[in-house]
Protein backbone atom coordinates (compact mmCIF):
# COMPACT_ATOMS: atom_id res chain seq x y z
CA UNK A 1 0.00 0.00 0.00
CA UNK A 2 1.31 3.41 -0.90
CA UNK A 3 -0.97 5.22 1.49
CA UNK A 4 0.44 6.96 4.56
CA UNK A 5 -1.16 7.67 7.87
CA UNK A 6 0.26 10.31 10.13
CA UNK A 7 0.60 9.91 13.87
CA UNK A 8 -2.24 12.19 14.84
CA UNK A 9 -4.73 9.81 13.35
CA UNK A 10 -5.25 11.53 10.04
CA UNK A 11 -5.67 8.91 7.43
CA UNK A 12 -5.40 10.38 4.02
CA UNK A 13 -3.08 9.50 1.26
CA UNK A 14 -1.61 12.13 -0.98
CA UNK A 15 -4.62 11.70 -3.21
CA UNK A 16 -6.99 13.95 -1.33
CA UNK A 17 -8.77 14.96 1.81
CA UNK A 18 -11.97 14.34 3.69
CA UNK A 19 -13.64 16.20 6.53
CA UNK A 20 -13.56 12.95 8.52
CA UNK A 21 -10.70 10.91 9.94
CA UNK A 22 -10.19 7.46 11.36
CA UNK A 23 -8.32 7.14 14.64
CA UNK A 24 -4.95 5.48 14.89
CA UNK A 25 -6.60 2.46 16.47
CA UNK A 26 -9.05 2.20 13.61
CA UNK A 27 -6.28 2.42 11.06
CA UNK A 28 -4.51 -0.40 12.87
CA UNK A 29 -7.73 -2.39 12.83
CA UNK A 30 -8.04 -1.83 9.09
CA UNK A 31 -4.52 -3.18 8.61
CA UNK A 32 -5.56 -6.35 10.46
CA UNK A 33 -8.69 -6.63 8.33
CA UNK A 34 -6.60 -6.45 5.17
CA UNK A 35 -4.61 -9.51 6.22
CA UNK A 36 -7.79 -11.60 6.07
CA UNK A 37 -8.28 -11.20 2.34
CA UNK A 38 -5.97 -11.57 -0.65
CA UNK A 39 -7.05 -8.18 -2.03
CA UNK A 40 -7.55 -4.81 -0.36
CA UNK A 41 -10.81 -4.18 -2.15
CA UNK A 42 -12.44 -6.93 -0.09
CA UNK A 43 -12.37 -4.77 3.02
CA UNK A 44 -14.62 -2.16 1.43
CA UNK A 45 -17.74 -3.46 3.19
CA UNK A 46 -16.17 -3.91 6.63
CA UNK A 47 -14.54 -0.48 6.48
CA UNK A 48 -17.78 1.17 5.37
CA UNK A 49 -19.38 -0.46 8.42
CA UNK A 50 -16.62 0.84 10.64
CA UNK A 51 -17.13 4.32 9.20
CA UNK A 52 -20.88 4.23 9.66
CA UNK A 53 -20.57 3.00 13.23
CA UNK A 54 -18.22 5.90 13.92
CA UNK A 55 -19.85 8.78 12.04
CA UNK A 56 -23.46 7.58 11.94
CA UNK A 57 -23.63 7.54 8.15
CA UNK A 58 -21.51 7.14 5.04
CA UNK A 59 -22.26 10.33 3.14
CA UNK A 60 -20.02 11.26 0.19
CA UNK A 61 -17.40 12.80 2.51
CA UNK A 62 -17.19 9.59 4.55
CA UNK A 63 -17.05 7.56 1.33
CA UNK A 64 -14.04 9.67 0.34
CA UNK A 65 -12.34 8.91 3.62
CA UNK A 66 -12.85 5.20 3.02
CA UNK A 67 -11.60 5.48 -0.56
CA UNK A 68 -8.47 7.39 0.41
CA UNK A 69 -7.75 5.20 3.39
CA UNK A 70 -7.87 2.07 1.25
CA UNK A 71 -6.34 3.70 -1.82
CA UNK A 72 -9.36 2.67 -3.88
CA UNK A 73 -11.20 4.78 -6.45
CA UNK A 74 -13.92 6.94 -4.92
CA UNK A 75 -16.27 5.68 -7.61
CA UNK A 76 -15.81 2.14 -6.34
CA UNK A 77 -16.61 3.00 -2.73
CA UNK A 78 -19.53 5.14 -3.83
CA UNK A 79 -20.94 2.34 -5.97
CA UNK A 80 -20.72 -0.11 -3.09
CA UNK A 81 -22.26 2.29 -0.56
CA UNK A 82 -25.15 2.93 -2.94
CA UNK A 83 -25.78 -0.76 -3.60
CA UNK A 84 -26.38 -1.84 0.00
CA UNK A 85 -29.45 -0.56 1.83
CA UNK A 86 -28.00 -0.68 5.32
CA UNK A 87 -25.46 2.02 4.55
CA UNK A 88 -26.93 5.44 5.29
CA UNK A 89 -25.96 7.68 2.39
CA UNK A 90 -27.34 10.70 4.24
CA UNK A 91 -27.43 11.33 7.99
CA UNK A 92 -30.43 9.76 9.75
CA UNK A 93 -32.12 10.25 13.08
CA UNK A 94 -30.37 9.15 16.24
CA UNK A 95 -32.48 5.99 16.23
CA UNK A 96 -33.47 4.32 12.99
CA UNK A 97 -36.55 2.12 13.27
CA UNK A 98 -36.78 -0.48 10.51
CA UNK A 99 -40.24 -1.98 10.60
CA UNK A 100 -40.60 -5.16 8.57
CA UNK A 101 -43.69 -5.15 6.35
CA UNK A 102 -42.61 -8.07 4.16
CA UNK A 103 -44.51 -11.31 3.59
CA UNK A 104 -44.98 -12.87 7.05
CA UNK A 105 -44.95 -9.54 8.86
CA UNK A 106 -47.47 -8.21 6.37
CA UNK A 107 -49.75 -11.14 7.24
CA UNK A 108 -49.30 -10.56 10.96
CA UNK A 109 -49.83 -6.84 11.40
CA UNK A 110 -46.60 -5.23 10.19
CA UNK A 111 -48.51 -2.45 8.45
CA UNK A 112 -50.45 -1.74 11.65
CA UNK A 113 -47.20 -1.44 13.54
CA UNK A 114 -45.84 0.92 10.93
CA UNK A 115 -49.06 2.95 11.01
CA UNK A 116 -48.98 3.11 14.79
CA UNK A 117 -45.42 4.43 14.69
CA UNK A 118 -46.28 6.95 11.98
CA UNK A 119 -49.08 8.34 14.14
CA UNK A 120 -47.10 8.30 17.31
CA UNK A 121 -44.02 9.98 15.81
CA UNK A 122 -46.01 12.25 13.50
CA UNK A 123 -43.95 11.26 10.46
CA UNK A 124 -44.31 8.98 7.46
CA UNK A 125 -42.07 6.02 6.70
CA UNK A 126 -38.86 7.37 5.22
CA UNK A 127 -38.93 10.54 7.35
CA UNK A 128 -37.12 11.75 10.46
CA UNK A 129 -38.72 13.50 13.42
CA UNK A 130 -37.95 17.25 13.55
CA UNK A 131 -35.93 16.80 16.75
CA UNK A 132 -33.69 14.32 14.91
CA UNK A 133 -34.43 11.51 17.37
CA UNK A 134 -36.18 8.96 15.17
CA UNK A 135 -36.07 7.90 11.54
CA UNK A 136 -38.86 5.53 10.53
CA UNK A 137 -38.30 3.09 7.67
CA UNK A 138 -40.16 0.24 6.04
CA UNK A 139 -37.91 -2.81 5.80
CA UNK A 140 -37.88 -5.97 3.72
CA UNK A 141 -37.77 -9.37 5.45
CA UNK A 142 -35.33 -9.26 8.35
CA UNK A 143 -35.31 -13.00 9.08
CA UNK A 144 -37.63 -12.87 12.08
CA UNK A 145 -40.76 -14.01 10.27
CA UNK A 146 -42.09 -16.18 13.09
CA UNK A 147 -41.88 -13.34 15.57
CA UNK A 148 -43.90 -10.79 13.62
CA UNK A 149 -44.56 -7.94 13.80
CA UNK A 150 -41.04 -6.81 14.49
CA UNK A 151 -38.52 -4.07 13.90
CA UNK A 152 -34.79 -3.56 13.98
CA UNK A 153 -33.24 -0.64 15.79
CA UNK A 154 -30.43 1.27 14.08
CA UNK A 155 -29.01 -1.77 12.29
CA UNK A 156 -28.67 -3.56 15.59
CA UNK A 157 -31.10 -5.35 17.92
CA UNK A 158 -34.41 -6.82 16.84
CA UNK A 159 -37.56 -6.27 18.88
CA UNK A 160 -40.18 -8.89 18.20
CA UNK A 161 -43.86 -9.59 18.82
CA UNK A 162 -44.67 -5.90 18.74
CA UNK A 163 -47.88 -4.55 20.25
CA UNK A 164 -48.74 -0.87 20.70
CA UNK A 165 -47.74 -1.19 24.37
CA UNK A 166 -44.41 -2.73 23.47
CA UNK A 167 -43.75 -0.06 20.83
CA UNK A 168 -44.45 2.66 23.44
CA UNK A 169 -42.09 0.98 25.85
CA UNK A 170 -39.31 0.71 23.29
CA UNK A 171 -39.67 4.37 22.27
CA UNK A 172 -39.52 5.48 25.92
CA UNK A 173 -36.49 3.34 26.48
CA UNK A 174 -34.70 4.76 23.43
CA UNK A 175 -35.64 8.33 24.35
CA UNK A 176 -34.12 7.81 27.78
CA UNK A 177 -30.83 6.76 26.22
CA UNK A 178 -31.21 3.03 26.75
CA UNK A 179 -31.41 0.29 24.12
CA UNK A 180 -33.58 -2.81 24.33
CA UNK A 181 -31.77 -6.05 25.12
CA UNK A 182 -31.20 -8.82 22.62
CA UNK A 183 -34.23 -11.13 22.72
CA UNK A 184 -33.26 -14.76 22.59
CA UNK A 185 -36.18 -16.74 21.21
CA UNK A 186 -35.61 -20.42 21.92
CA UNK A 187 -36.94 -23.10 19.65
CA UNK A 188 -40.16 -24.53 21.00
CA UNK A 189 -39.92 -28.20 21.85
CA UNK A 190 -41.84 -30.46 19.56
CA UNK A 191 -42.09 -33.53 21.71
CA UNK A 192 -45.58 -33.87 23.15
CA UNK A 193 -44.22 -35.23 26.39
CA UNK A 194 -42.42 -32.08 27.45
CA UNK A 195 -44.69 -29.55 25.95
CA UNK A 196 -43.59 -25.99 26.39
CA UNK A 197 -40.00 -26.15 27.42
CA UNK A 198 -37.47 -24.49 25.20
CA UNK A 199 -34.97 -26.42 23.15
CA UNK A 200 -31.49 -25.21 22.52
CA UNK A 201 -30.14 -22.07 23.93
CA UNK A 202 -27.76 -20.86 26.52
CA UNK A 203 -28.56 -21.18 30.16
CA UNK A 204 -27.55 -17.64 30.92
Amino acid at each position, binding site marked *: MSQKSSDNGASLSQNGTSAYTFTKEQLAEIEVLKTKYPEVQAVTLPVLWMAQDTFGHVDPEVQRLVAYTLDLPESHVH*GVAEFYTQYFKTPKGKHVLDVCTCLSCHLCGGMDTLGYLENKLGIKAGETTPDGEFTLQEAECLGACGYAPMMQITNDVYVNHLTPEKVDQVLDQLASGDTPDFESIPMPLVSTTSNNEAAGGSDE
Partner: protein
Amino acid sequence: MSDWTTYEPVLIPNIAGLDRLETYRKHGGYDALHAVLHDQNTWPDPASVVQEVKEANIRGRGGAGFNAGLKWSFMPPVDGGPRYLACNGDESEPGTFKDRKIFEYNPFLFIEGATIAAYAMSITSIYVYIRGEYRSWIHKMEKAVSDAYDAGLLGQNILGSDFSVDLVLHSGAGAYICGEETSLLESLEGKRGYPRVKPPFPAQRGLWGRPTTINNIETLSNVPGVIRNGADWFKSIGAESHPGPILYGISGHVNRPGVYELPSGMPVMTLIEEVAQGMRNGKKLKAIIPGGSSTPILPAKDLEDLTMDADALRGAGSMMGTAGMVVMDEDTDIVETLWRISKFYHHESCGQCTPCREGTGWLEKILEKVVTGQGTTRDLDLLLDITSQMEGRTICALADAAAWPVRYTISRFRDEFEARCKPSLIPVG
Protein backbone atom coordinates in the same frame (compact mmCIF):
# COMPACT_ATOMS: atom_id res chain seq x y z
CA MET B 1 -42.49 -41.77 8.56
CA SER B 2 -41.20 -42.49 12.04
CA ASP B 3 -42.91 -40.96 15.02
CA TRP B 4 -41.93 -37.32 15.01
CA THR B 5 -42.92 -36.79 18.63
CA THR B 6 -39.98 -38.89 19.78
CA TYR B 7 -37.49 -37.39 17.30
CA GLU B 8 -34.32 -36.23 19.04
CA PRO B 9 -32.97 -33.03 17.50
CA VAL B 10 -29.37 -33.24 16.30
CA LEU B 11 -28.77 -29.79 14.79
CA ILE B 12 -30.09 -27.92 17.80
CA PRO B 13 -30.45 -30.44 20.59
CA ASN B 14 -32.10 -29.47 23.83
CA ILE B 15 -28.87 -28.90 25.70
CA ALA B 16 -28.31 -25.68 27.59
CA GLY B 17 -25.10 -23.80 26.87
CA LEU B 18 -24.12 -25.57 23.65
CA ASP B 19 -22.90 -22.22 22.42
CA ARG B 20 -19.98 -22.68 24.81
CA LEU B 21 -17.12 -24.69 23.42
CA GLU B 22 -16.58 -26.81 26.54
CA THR B 23 -20.26 -27.83 26.59
CA TYR B 24 -20.20 -28.54 22.87
CA ARG B 25 -17.13 -30.75 23.26
CA LYS B 26 -18.55 -32.51 26.29
CA HIS B 27 -21.45 -33.63 24.11
CA GLY B 28 -19.29 -35.12 21.37
CA GLY B 29 -18.48 -31.89 19.59
CA TYR B 30 -15.32 -32.02 17.47
CA ASP B 31 -15.18 -35.85 17.65
CA ALA B 32 -15.98 -35.87 13.94
CA LEU B 33 -13.24 -33.45 13.00
CA HIS B 34 -10.82 -35.34 15.22
CA ALA B 35 -11.68 -38.61 13.50
CA VAL B 36 -11.31 -37.15 10.05
CA LEU B 37 -7.87 -35.76 10.88
CA HIS B 38 -6.51 -38.66 12.91
CA ASP B 39 -8.40 -41.90 12.26
CA GLN B 40 -6.48 -43.11 9.22
CA ASN B 41 -8.37 -46.38 9.00
CA THR B 42 -11.80 -44.85 8.61
CA TRP B 43 -10.76 -41.67 6.82
CA PRO B 44 -7.65 -42.46 4.78
CA ASP B 45 -7.85 -39.26 2.74
CA PRO B 46 -9.99 -36.17 2.07
CA ALA B 47 -11.72 -37.97 -0.82
CA SER B 48 -13.13 -40.53 1.62
CA VAL B 49 -14.89 -37.69 3.45
CA VAL B 50 -16.34 -36.32 0.21
CA GLN B 51 -17.54 -39.81 -0.65
CA GLU B 52 -19.37 -40.29 2.66
CA VAL B 53 -21.04 -36.88 2.45
CA LYS B 54 -22.07 -37.57 -1.12
CA GLU B 55 -23.48 -40.91 -0.06
CA ALA B 56 -25.51 -39.23 2.70
CA ASN B 57 -27.25 -37.06 0.12
CA ILE B 58 -27.44 -33.87 2.19
CA ARG B 59 -29.52 -31.79 -0.19
CA GLY B 60 -28.56 -28.12 0.01
CA ARG B 61 -30.67 -26.29 2.56
CA GLY B 62 -30.17 -22.90 0.90
CA GLY B 63 -33.01 -23.52 -1.52
CA ALA B 64 -31.74 -25.41 -4.54
CA GLY B 65 -31.52 -28.84 -2.88
CA PHE B 66 -28.31 -30.00 -4.56
CA ASN B 67 -26.38 -32.94 -3.04
CA ALA B 68 -23.59 -31.30 -1.02
CA GLY B 69 -21.02 -34.09 -1.41
CA LEU B 70 -21.60 -34.17 -5.14
CA LYS B 71 -20.99 -30.42 -5.28
CA TRP B 72 -17.77 -30.88 -3.32
CA SER B 73 -16.59 -33.47 -5.83
CA PHE B 74 -16.67 -30.79 -8.57
CA MET B 75 -13.68 -29.02 -7.05
CA PRO B 76 -10.69 -29.38 -9.39
CA PRO B 77 -7.51 -31.18 -8.29
CA VAL B 78 -5.25 -29.33 -5.87
CA ASP B 79 -2.69 -27.15 -7.66
CA GLY B 80 -1.01 -25.53 -4.68
CA GLY B 81 -2.92 -22.26 -4.97
CA PRO B 82 -5.68 -21.01 -2.65
CA ARG B 83 -9.10 -22.68 -2.59
CA TYR B 84 -12.12 -21.29 -0.84
CA LEU B 85 -15.28 -22.29 0.96
CA ALA B 86 -17.95 -19.58 1.10
CA CYS B 87 -20.63 -20.25 3.69
CA ASN B 88 -23.96 -18.71 2.87
CA GLY B 89 -25.61 -17.10 5.90
CA ASP B 90 -27.34 -14.37 3.95
CA GLU B 91 -30.75 -15.80 4.91
CA SER B 92 -32.96 -13.20 3.25
CA GLU B 93 -35.69 -15.14 1.45
CA PRO B 94 -38.95 -13.94 3.05
CA GLY B 95 -40.29 -16.62 5.39
CA THR B 96 -36.80 -17.91 6.25
CA PHE B 97 -35.31 -17.49 9.73
CA LYS B 98 -33.49 -20.73 10.51
CA ASP B 99 -29.73 -20.26 10.04
CA ARG B 100 -29.71 -17.65 12.80
CA LYS B 101 -30.78 -20.43 15.20
CA ILE B 102 -27.57 -22.28 14.45
CA PHE B 103 -25.48 -19.12 14.96
CA GLU B 104 -27.21 -18.55 18.26
CA TYR B 105 -27.61 -22.01 19.76
CA ASN B 106 -25.07 -24.30 18.13
CA PRO B 107 -22.38 -22.19 16.44
CA PHE B 108 -19.63 -24.77 16.85
CA LEU B 109 -21.62 -27.42 15.01
CA PHE B 110 -21.55 -25.20 11.95
CA ILE B 111 -17.89 -24.25 12.45
CA GLU B 112 -16.95 -27.92 12.82
CA GLY B 113 -18.96 -28.79 9.70
CA ALA B 114 -17.28 -26.04 7.69
CA THR B 115 -13.86 -27.16 8.93
CA ILE B 116 -14.52 -30.77 7.89
CA ALA B 117 -15.73 -29.51 4.50
CA ALA B 118 -12.52 -27.49 4.21
CA TYR B 119 -10.44 -30.56 4.95
CA ALA B 120 -12.40 -32.66 2.48
CA MET B 121 -11.87 -30.15 -0.36
CA SER B 122 -8.36 -28.99 0.65
CA ILE B 123 -9.72 -25.50 1.24
CA THR B 124 -7.26 -22.89 2.44
CA SER B 125 -9.70 -20.21 3.69
CA ILE B 126 -13.31 -20.26 4.81
CA TYR B 127 -15.41 -17.12 4.48
CA VAL B 128 -18.71 -16.96 6.31
CA TYR B 129 -21.06 -14.42 4.80
CA ILE B 130 -23.77 -13.32 7.22
CA ARG B 131 -26.46 -10.79 6.35
CA GLY B 132 -25.65 -7.41 7.87
CA GLU B 133 -28.96 -7.19 9.68
CA TYR B 134 -27.88 -10.15 11.82
CA ARG B 135 -25.45 -8.02 13.80
CA SER B 136 -26.49 -9.62 17.09
CA TRP B 137 -25.78 -13.05 15.65
CA ILE B 138 -22.52 -11.96 14.05
CA HIS B 139 -21.36 -10.96 17.54
CA LYS B 140 -22.21 -14.45 18.78
CA MET B 141 -20.28 -15.97 15.89
CA GLU B 142 -17.28 -13.71 16.56
CA LYS B 143 -17.06 -15.11 20.06
CA ALA B 144 -17.38 -18.70 18.84
CA VAL B 145 -14.76 -18.26 16.11
CA SER B 146 -12.33 -16.65 18.51
CA ASP B 147 -12.83 -19.50 21.01
CA ALA B 148 -12.27 -22.06 18.25
CA TYR B 149 -9.00 -20.35 17.29
CA ASP B 150 -7.89 -20.26 20.93
CA ALA B 151 -8.53 -23.98 21.27
CA GLY B 152 -6.55 -24.86 18.14
CA LEU B 153 -9.69 -25.81 16.22
CA LEU B 154 -9.08 -23.20 13.53
CA GLY B 155 -5.85 -21.75 12.16
CA GLN B 156 -2.55 -23.59 12.00
CA ASN B 157 -2.21 -27.34 12.60
CA ILE B 158 -5.76 -28.00 13.70
CA LEU B 159 -6.01 -30.56 16.52
CA GLY B 160 -2.30 -31.21 16.17
CA SER B 161 -2.63 -32.38 12.57
CA ASP B 162 -0.91 -30.91 9.53
CA PHE B 163 -4.21 -29.45 8.34
CA SER B 164 -4.58 -25.66 8.59
CA VAL B 165 -7.44 -23.42 7.60
CA ASP B 166 -8.59 -19.90 8.47
CA LEU B 167 -12.17 -18.78 8.96
CA VAL B 168 -13.23 -15.17 8.36
CA LEU B 169 -16.64 -13.71 9.18
CA HIS B 170 -17.93 -11.21 6.65
CA SER B 171 -20.96 -9.04 7.23
CA GLY B 172 -23.29 -8.13 4.40
CA ALA B 173 -24.98 -4.75 4.37
CA GLY B 174 -28.55 -5.25 3.26
CA ALA B 175 -29.08 -6.85 -0.15
CA TYR B 176 -31.17 -9.99 -0.66
CA ILE B 177 -29.41 -10.69 -3.93
CA CYS B 178 -26.14 -11.38 -2.08
CA GLY B 179 -27.63 -14.74 -1.07
CA GLU B 180 -27.34 -15.80 -4.70
CA GLU B 181 -24.05 -17.64 -4.73
CA THR B 182 -22.12 -15.62 -7.31
CA SER B 183 -23.47 -12.33 -6.00
CA LEU B 184 -22.19 -13.44 -2.61
CA LEU B 185 -18.73 -13.91 -4.12
CA GLU B 186 -18.80 -10.41 -5.60
CA SER B 187 -19.86 -9.01 -2.24
CA LEU B 188 -17.07 -10.88 -0.47
CA GLU B 189 -14.63 -9.35 -2.92
CA GLY B 190 -15.86 -5.94 -1.81
CA LYS B 191 -18.04 -5.09 -4.77
CA ARG B 192 -21.67 -4.47 -5.56
CA GLY B 193 -23.48 -7.80 -5.47
CA TYR B 194 -24.04 -8.31 -9.18
CA PRO B 195 -24.46 -12.04 -9.93
CA ARG B 196 -21.93 -13.50 -12.35
CA VAL B 197 -22.70 -15.23 -15.60
CA LYS B 198 -22.24 -19.01 -15.32
CA PRO B 199 -20.20 -20.79 -16.61
CA PRO B 200 -17.53 -20.58 -15.38
CA PHE B 201 -18.94 -22.17 -12.24
CA PRO B 202 -17.48 -21.22 -8.86
CA ALA B 203 -15.72 -24.58 -8.52
CA GLN B 204 -13.63 -23.51 -11.53
CA ARG B 205 -13.45 -19.76 -11.00
CA GLY B 206 -14.90 -18.49 -7.75
CA LEU B 207 -13.48 -16.07 -5.21
CA TRP B 208 -10.57 -14.15 -6.66
CA GLY B 209 -10.66 -16.44 -9.67
CA ARG B 210 -9.90 -19.53 -7.60
CA PRO B 211 -11.85 -22.77 -7.00
CA THR B 212 -14.68 -22.10 -4.55
CA THR B 213 -17.58 -24.05 -3.09
CA ILE B 214 -20.65 -22.31 -1.70
CA ASN B 215 -22.85 -24.01 0.88
CA ASN B 216 -25.64 -22.92 3.14
CA ILE B 217 -25.09 -22.77 6.93
CA GLU B 218 -27.63 -25.51 7.70
CA THR B 219 -26.19 -27.75 4.96
CA LEU B 220 -22.72 -27.60 6.53
CA SER B 221 -24.14 -28.11 10.01
CA ASN B 222 -25.28 -31.57 8.92
CA VAL B 223 -21.74 -32.66 8.11
CA PRO B 224 -20.43 -33.52 11.62
CA GLY B 225 -23.40 -35.85 12.19
CA VAL B 226 -22.78 -37.65 8.90
CA ILE B 227 -19.13 -38.16 9.78
CA ARG B 228 -19.83 -39.27 13.33
CA ASN B 229 -22.77 -41.57 12.61
CA GLY B 230 -22.34 -42.42 8.96
CA ALA B 231 -24.27 -41.79 5.78
CA ASP B 232 -26.69 -44.63 6.53
CA TRP B 233 -27.75 -43.04 9.79
CA PHE B 234 -28.42 -39.77 7.98
CA LYS B 235 -30.40 -41.50 5.27
CA SER B 236 -32.54 -43.23 7.89
CA ILE B 237 -33.94 -39.84 8.96
CA GLY B 238 -37.04 -38.60 7.16
CA ALA B 239 -37.87 -38.78 3.46
CA GLU B 240 -35.85 -41.24 1.41
CA SER B 241 -35.06 -38.95 -1.50
CA HIS B 242 -34.41 -35.91 0.67
CA PRO B 243 -33.10 -37.27 3.94
CA GLY B 244 -31.99 -35.74 7.21
CA PRO B 245 -33.13 -33.23 9.78
CA ILE B 246 -34.71 -30.00 8.61
CA LEU B 247 -35.07 -26.70 10.38
CA TYR B 248 -38.65 -25.83 9.51
CA GLY B 249 -39.42 -22.15 9.97
CA ILE B 250 -43.14 -21.72 10.40
CA SER B 251 -44.65 -18.25 10.28
CA GLY B 252 -47.98 -16.62 9.59
CA HIS B 253 -51.36 -17.42 11.07
CA VAL B 254 -50.52 -20.31 13.41
CA ASN B 255 -50.71 -20.43 17.19
CA ARG B 256 -47.07 -21.27 17.75
CA PRO B 257 -44.85 -19.96 14.96
CA GLY B 258 -41.13 -20.67 15.22
CA VAL B 259 -38.26 -22.81 13.98
CA TYR B 260 -38.61 -26.53 14.61
CA GLU B 261 -36.08 -29.25 13.97
CA LEU B 262 -37.79 -32.38 12.64
CA PRO B 263 -37.11 -35.05 10.04
CA SER B 264 -37.57 -34.13 6.40
CA GLY B 265 -40.80 -35.26 4.81
CA MET B 266 -43.06 -34.08 7.64
CA PRO B 267 -46.73 -33.98 6.64
CA VAL B 268 -47.68 -30.36 6.06
CA MET B 269 -50.87 -30.72 8.09
CA THR B 270 -48.99 -32.19 11.04
CA LEU B 271 -46.63 -29.22 10.98
CA ILE B 272 -49.56 -26.83 11.01
CA GLU B 273 -51.97 -28.58 13.33
CA GLU B 274 -49.72 -30.30 15.80
CA VAL B 275 -46.26 -28.80 15.69
CA ALA B 276 -47.38 -25.18 15.33
CA GLN B 277 -50.50 -25.98 17.34
CA GLY B 278 -53.11 -25.08 14.78
CA MET B 279 -54.54 -21.99 13.20
CA ARG B 280 -54.77 -18.76 15.18
CA ASN B 281 -58.20 -17.74 16.46
CA GLY B 282 -59.74 -20.99 15.24
CA LYS B 283 -59.70 -19.79 11.64
CA LYS B 284 -59.65 -22.11 8.66
CA LEU B 285 -56.52 -22.71 6.61
CA LYS B 286 -56.52 -21.09 3.19
CA ALA B 287 -53.07 -21.71 1.73
CA ILE B 288 -49.37 -22.11 2.42
CA ILE B 289 -46.19 -20.95 0.79
CA PRO B 290 -44.04 -23.98 1.61
CA GLY B 291 -40.42 -22.87 1.44
CA GLY B 292 -39.90 -19.12 1.29
CA SER B 293 -41.59 -16.46 -0.81
CA SER B 294 -40.41 -17.73 -4.20
CA THR B 295 -41.97 -21.18 -3.84
CA PRO B 296 -45.41 -21.43 -5.45
CA ILE B 297 -48.41 -21.10 -3.16
CA LEU B 298 -50.52 -24.20 -2.45
CA PRO B 299 -54.22 -23.98 -1.60
CA ALA B 300 -55.49 -25.87 1.46
CA LYS B 301 -57.24 -28.50 -0.65
CA ASP B 302 -53.88 -29.67 -2.00
CA LEU B 303 -52.28 -30.14 1.40
CA GLU B 304 -54.12 -33.17 2.73
CA ASP B 305 -51.45 -35.83 2.21
CA LEU B 306 -48.59 -33.60 1.24
CA THR B 307 -45.17 -34.03 2.83
CA MET B 308 -42.27 -31.59 3.06
CA ASP B 309 -39.63 -32.98 0.76
CA ALA B 310 -38.45 -31.94 -2.66
CA ASP B 311 -40.16 -34.71 -4.62
CA ALA B 312 -43.55 -34.51 -2.93
CA LEU B 313 -43.62 -30.73 -3.22
CA ARG B 314 -42.60 -30.81 -6.84
CA GLY B 315 -45.40 -33.28 -7.47
CA ALA B 316 -47.84 -30.88 -5.85
CA GLY B 317 -46.63 -28.02 -8.04
CA SER B 318 -44.30 -26.25 -5.66
CA MET B 319 -40.84 -26.55 -4.14
CA MET B 320 -39.08 -27.23 -0.86
CA GLY B 321 -36.98 -24.05 -1.01
CA THR B 322 -35.73 -23.14 2.45
CA ALA B 323 -38.53 -24.99 4.34
CA GLY B 324 -39.69 -21.62 5.61
CA MET B 325 -43.42 -22.26 5.55
CA VAL B 326 -45.79 -19.30 5.53
CA VAL B 327 -49.30 -20.20 6.68
CA MET B 328 -52.33 -18.15 5.65
CA ASP B 329 -55.83 -18.29 7.11
CA GLU B 330 -59.21 -17.83 5.43
CA ASP B 331 -59.19 -14.05 5.92
CA THR B 332 -55.95 -13.59 3.98
CA ASP B 333 -56.14 -11.23 1.05
CA ILE B 334 -54.26 -13.31 -1.52
CA VAL B 335 -54.12 -10.45 -4.03
CA GLU B 336 -52.51 -8.09 -1.56
CA THR B 337 -50.13 -10.80 -0.35
CA LEU B 338 -48.92 -11.39 -3.91
CA TRP B 339 -48.48 -7.66 -4.44
CA ARG B 340 -46.30 -7.52 -1.31
CA ILE B 341 -44.16 -10.41 -2.55
CA SER B 342 -43.72 -8.68 -5.91
CA LYS B 343 -42.76 -5.46 -4.20
CA PHE B 344 -40.00 -7.36 -2.43
CA TYR B 345 -38.53 -8.80 -5.63
CA HIS B 346 -38.70 -5.47 -7.40
CA HIS B 347 -36.86 -3.84 -4.52
CA GLU B 348 -34.20 -6.54 -4.53
CA SER B 349 -33.54 -6.95 -8.26
CA CYS B 350 -29.95 -5.89 -8.88
CA GLY B 351 -30.96 -4.39 -12.21
CA GLN B 352 -28.35 -6.05 -14.43
CA CYS B 353 -30.79 -7.86 -16.71
CA THR B 354 -33.56 -6.02 -18.51
CA PRO B 355 -36.24 -8.74 -18.16
CA CYS B 356 -35.72 -8.81 -14.40
CA ARG B 357 -35.28 -5.08 -13.78
CA GLU B 358 -38.26 -4.09 -15.93
CA GLY B 359 -40.31 -7.21 -15.30
CA THR B 360 -40.23 -7.02 -11.49
CA GLY B 361 -41.18 -3.35 -11.75
CA TRP B 362 -44.14 -4.07 -13.99
CA LEU B 363 -45.32 -6.96 -11.84
CA GLU B 364 -45.40 -4.72 -8.80
CA LYS B 365 -47.02 -1.82 -10.62
CA ILE B 366 -49.77 -3.86 -12.25
CA LEU B 367 -50.50 -5.77 -9.05
CA GLU B 368 -50.80 -2.48 -7.21
CA LYS B 369 -53.41 -1.50 -9.76
CA VAL B 370 -55.29 -4.74 -9.17
CA VAL B 371 -55.08 -4.43 -5.38
CA THR B 372 -56.56 -0.94 -5.46
CA GLY B 373 -59.40 -2.02 -7.75
CA GLN B 374 -58.01 -0.24 -10.80
CA GLY B 375 -57.02 -3.40 -12.64
CA THR B 376 -58.85 -5.13 -15.44
CA THR B 377 -59.04 -8.84 -16.18
CA ARG B 378 -56.77 -8.10 -19.10
CA ASP B 379 -54.10 -7.06 -16.62
CA LEU B 380 -54.08 -10.58 -15.21
CA ASP B 381 -53.11 -11.98 -18.58
CA LEU B 382 -50.56 -9.24 -18.99
CA LEU B 383 -49.02 -10.32 -15.66
CA LEU B 384 -48.79 -13.93 -16.85
CA ASP B 385 -47.29 -12.76 -20.10
CA ILE B 386 -44.63 -10.77 -18.26
CA THR B 387 -43.68 -13.77 -16.14
CA SER B 388 -43.07 -15.91 -19.21
CA GLN B 389 -40.80 -13.21 -20.58
CA MET B 390 -38.77 -13.23 -17.37
CA GLU B 391 -38.33 -16.92 -16.63
CA GLY B 392 -35.05 -18.43 -17.74
CA ARG B 393 -33.88 -15.32 -19.54
CA THR B 394 -31.62 -13.76 -16.94
CA ILE B 395 -28.22 -14.08 -15.32
CA CYS B 396 -29.52 -15.40 -12.01
CA ALA B 397 -32.65 -17.04 -10.65
CA LEU B 398 -34.07 -13.95 -8.94
CA ALA B 399 -36.18 -13.28 -11.99
CA ASP B 400 -37.65 -16.79 -11.77
CA ALA B 401 -38.13 -16.36 -8.02
CA ALA B 402 -40.13 -13.21 -8.77
CA ALA B 403 -42.09 -14.74 -11.63
CA TRP B 404 -43.18 -18.03 -10.03
CA PRO B 405 -45.32 -16.56 -7.24
CA VAL B 406 -47.15 -14.37 -9.75
CA ARG B 407 -47.73 -17.16 -12.23
CA TYR B 408 -48.94 -19.72 -9.70
CA THR B 409 -50.86 -17.43 -7.38
CA ILE B 410 -52.90 -16.07 -10.26
CA SER B 411 -53.50 -19.50 -11.76
CA ARG B 412 -54.45 -21.05 -8.41
CA PHE B 413 -56.57 -18.16 -7.09
CA ARG B 414 -57.77 -16.66 -10.36
CA ASP B 415 -61.31 -16.01 -9.09
CA GLU B 416 -60.04 -13.82 -6.26
CA PHE B 417 -58.04 -11.77 -8.72
CA GLU B 418 -60.93 -11.47 -11.14
CA ALA B 419 -63.24 -10.38 -8.34
CA ARG B 420 -60.90 -7.43 -7.79
CA CYS B 421 -60.77 -6.48 -11.46
CA LYS B 422 -62.97 -4.37 -13.67
CA PRO B 423 -63.97 -6.14 -16.89
CA SER B 424 -61.65 -5.43 -19.80
CA LEU B 425 -63.07 -3.07 -22.36
CA ILE B 426 -60.95 -4.56 -25.10
CA PRO B 427 -61.40 -8.30 -25.51
CA VAL B 428 -58.34 -10.40 -24.77
CA GLY B 429 -56.66 -12.21 -27.65
